[in-house]
């Protein structure tokens, strides 16, 4: 555990990617062999199941530190991170434990089924045998919100360096759900390891938002332009007479989509298709909200299946007849894809049409009004592009339509977590309903560090009331809130629910009175769902 904590601290302390990679490579070089696969699992963001309730953890820590609960809670607000708050408040280390990373994770999984007082005993003894940094890492593992501050890409680079393999092959082997208890470094990363894993998806090729003038992309004839649909990006795999449907979040969703089951026989073995899974009825997609409700359901009734039928709008084929097509150009891949969609798929698979435009201005006009065409913008793909690994610039771009915006008044503020702990960075915004301000959105992102500091100072001097970590402030400042979608909602006080709200800018030029009204929001909903 010492080595892992040392690596975590080194990664945490630096913002330089090279230093982070170096710290990981050093860890893999010197760590205990049995620990490495667990470290990989944690580094790419897998989290152990939380074995204790945080409420219990708080009580045990406060008791051990001999602090009243109210003081513990207040200190926790200030730190903004429970794992760190506990680590800081515990009494000084008393002994030295000898847990490895694997031991530690095994301890955590063992805890789940133990009675509460046994859990308490084991956790306290771990705490008292560990120095500050190690307590913090341990607590992070217990509370299940461990984030390593490295991107998957960096982990892949470090593993590639350590193992002397290509990054693309590491990325491939890391895909999907795997269990570190059932794998070893050898079973995961040997060159043939993917052969006995028919379920293994390919790493997705992801696009950045276009950040230059489209005219700079060159002749429009070199590009495919497709609708960017708002569904779930997924991969359908048929191999060894089985079907596997993966989301881009690498969740295996096969059981959620019974529609696709028949593809297992209609598609030949050795087929992998990339596309957008989306509810589709009468030739148009249904709103994303409908999909979300469906995904959330445990059991899907036949009636529901009929009401919210899914299709995959396919835009790429990665494997056909067992052959990896990713290095072929997109023109060739689309030819194969067209053939598959027309011959094998009984309407469950649709082809993502390449739209015809004469110039980039026409594309820009389409993108501007994308919502009218049931999409959220366009995808631009170079015809000569191969299927790359991860998020890359250059050959694929997404070009989303501008978000909708509303001006809201800052009403409540709450301190953030992690890097933003102890700073008021989580804001609630309101619109006018007559003389009343009705909260309609929470937003956390969009301000610069400088603006956050300025606002934080102002909030501290203009607090009206404190409710635990939340403060109400003088309704004075107006912010332009951007969002991707708006729907009516019975669960929200304002009667509306926004999709992906964030702060676009601080409207210092506007007074609170000039903010939008609840009627403005209702009109947006009507305009969107005619």
């Amino acid at each position, binding site marked *: 555990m010492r080595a892992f904590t040392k690596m975590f601290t080194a990664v945490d302390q630096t913002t330089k990617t090279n230093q982070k990679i170096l710290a990981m490579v050093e860890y893999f070089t010197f760590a205990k062999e049995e620990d490495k696969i667990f470290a990989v699992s944690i580094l790419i963001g897998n989290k152990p199941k939380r074995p204790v309730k945080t409420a219990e953890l708080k009580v045990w820590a406060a008791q051990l530190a001999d602090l009243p609960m109210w003081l*513990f809670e207040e200190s926790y607000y200030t*730190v903004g991170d429970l794992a*760190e708050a506990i680590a*800081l408040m515990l009494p000084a280390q008393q002994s030295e434990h000898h847990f490895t990373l694997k031991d530690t994770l095994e301890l955590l999984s063992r805890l789940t089924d133990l009675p509460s007082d046994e859990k308490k005993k084991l956790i306290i003894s771990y705490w008292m045998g560990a120095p500050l940094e190690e307590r913090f890492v341990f607590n992070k593992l217990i509370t299940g919100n461990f984030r390593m501050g490295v991107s998957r890409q960096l982990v892949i680079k470090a593993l590639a360096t350590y193992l002397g393999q290509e990054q693309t092959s590491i990325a491939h082997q890391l895909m999907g759900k795997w269990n570190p208890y059932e794998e070893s470094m050898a079973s995961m990363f040997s060159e043939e390891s993917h052969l006995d894993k028919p379920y293994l998806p390919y790493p997705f090729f992801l696009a950045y938002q276009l950040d230059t003038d489209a005219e700079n992309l060159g002749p429009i004839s070199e590009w495919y332009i497709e609708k960017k649909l708002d569904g779930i990006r997924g991969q359908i795999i048929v191999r060894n007479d089985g079907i596997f449907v993966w989301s881009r979040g690498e969740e295996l969703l096969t059981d959620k989509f019974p529609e696709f089951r028949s593809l297992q026989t209609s598609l030949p073995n050795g087929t992998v298709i990339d596309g957008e899974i989306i509810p589709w009825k009468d030739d148009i997609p249904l709103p994303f909200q409908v999909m979300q409700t469906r995904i959330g359901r445990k059991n899907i009734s036949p009636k529901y299946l009929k009401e919210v039928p899914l299709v995959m709008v396919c835009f790429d084929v990665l494997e056909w007849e067992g052959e990896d097509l990713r290095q072929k150009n997109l023109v060739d891949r689309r030819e194969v894809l067209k053939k598959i969609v027309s011959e094998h798929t009984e309407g469950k698979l649709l082809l993502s049409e390449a739209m015809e435009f004469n110039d980039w201005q026409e594309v820009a006009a389409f993108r501007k009004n994308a919502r009218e065409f049931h999409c959220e913008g366009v995808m631009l793909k170079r015809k000569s592009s191969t299927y790359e690994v991860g998020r890359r610039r250059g050959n694929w771009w997404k070009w989303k339509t501008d978000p909708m915006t509303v001006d809201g008044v800052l009403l409540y503020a709450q301190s953030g977590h992690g890097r*933003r*702990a102890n700073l008021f960075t989580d804001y609630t915004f309101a619109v006018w309903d007559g003389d009343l301000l009705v909260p309609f959105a929470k937003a956390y992102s969009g301000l610069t560090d400088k603006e956050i*500091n300025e606002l934080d100072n102002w909030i501290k001097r203009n607090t009206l009331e404190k409710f635990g970590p939340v403060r109400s402030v003088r309704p004075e400042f107006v912010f332009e809130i951007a969002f991707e979608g708006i729907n009516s909602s019975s669960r929200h006080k304002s009667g509306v629910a926004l999709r992906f709200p964030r702060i676009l800018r601080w409207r210092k030029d506007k007074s609170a009175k000039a903010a939008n009204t609840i009627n403005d929001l209702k009109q947006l909903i009507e305009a969107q769902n005619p």
Partner: protein
Amino acid sequence: MLEFTEKGIYCPRADVYIDPWKPVKNALITHGHSDHARFGNGHYLCHQDTLTILRLRLGPDISVQGIAYNQTISKNGVKISLHPAGHIIGSAQVRLEYKGEIWVVSGDYKLIPDGLSVPFEPVKCHHFITESTFGLPIYNFPATQKVYASINGWWKQNAAEGFNSVIIAYALGKSQSILHQLDQSIGAIFLHGAVANVTNAFQAEGYNFPGTWVTPETDRKTIKGAMIVAPSSALSTPWITKFSPSRKAVCSGWMQLRGARRRAGVDRGFVLSDHCDWAQLNEAVLATGAENIYVTHGYQATYAKWLRERYGLNATEIKTQFEPATGDLE
């Protein structure tokens, strides 16, 4: 005997304000930091080792009197004396006695010796006014010798890898403590003007600190593997970037928290403070034997409640002018 007013802590009988926020006739200054020693007062009284700093910062022509620790002066029957606070050179607690009633205003203070300022001495009193900058149990500062060892180790490693090291610290106080502890065998030491100003002033008083002032004439190309000490105002200015390749560290009690460390946007955060941490605060309060505690500047409400609950003290929260802005380098 003391009142908490708009202008600061006031003793009507002696007609003197302690660290006033607004201009008054008579100001008693606990130490030279700018939020305690402000412009525009008629007359200043402070410890003799603070004279230099006061004149440096407020002008050579201010009307100011310096006295020694434990030396008593009388004002309209109030006996006033200064006692070591251990915060920075010349920092003092103020003791006021009238008809057997004793008040102590701690100013800023710490219990752990920094090797430069005269260490804190507890003063018995009935009423104690304490700051609470780090008045939460999450603040448990590591032993200073350990911190200095890590600073020197960090410098050594940076130098070996071809980097300059930049330390961000208060120009008055912390910079001198750090300079005092740097291992000069590792490399050369350079100072930002704001730091050099202060060390030069102290040098005139007989103190001795290493470090060369970086002036426009300094040949920056010769600066390699060196240590540069600068105040936070220098961060993200061209002045700093000229030392690249460099690694930067902030020295502050706030660096105890990971969020603050990451927000500082530097390579390292060293937990080094001239204030009390949680344990020191409790020790200091109890050592005064005071029944009445007034908590200012920091987590006053929380800390006062703790003192009432845990120790049965008559502790109250005194609202200071403002809540401290997050990110102040205490």
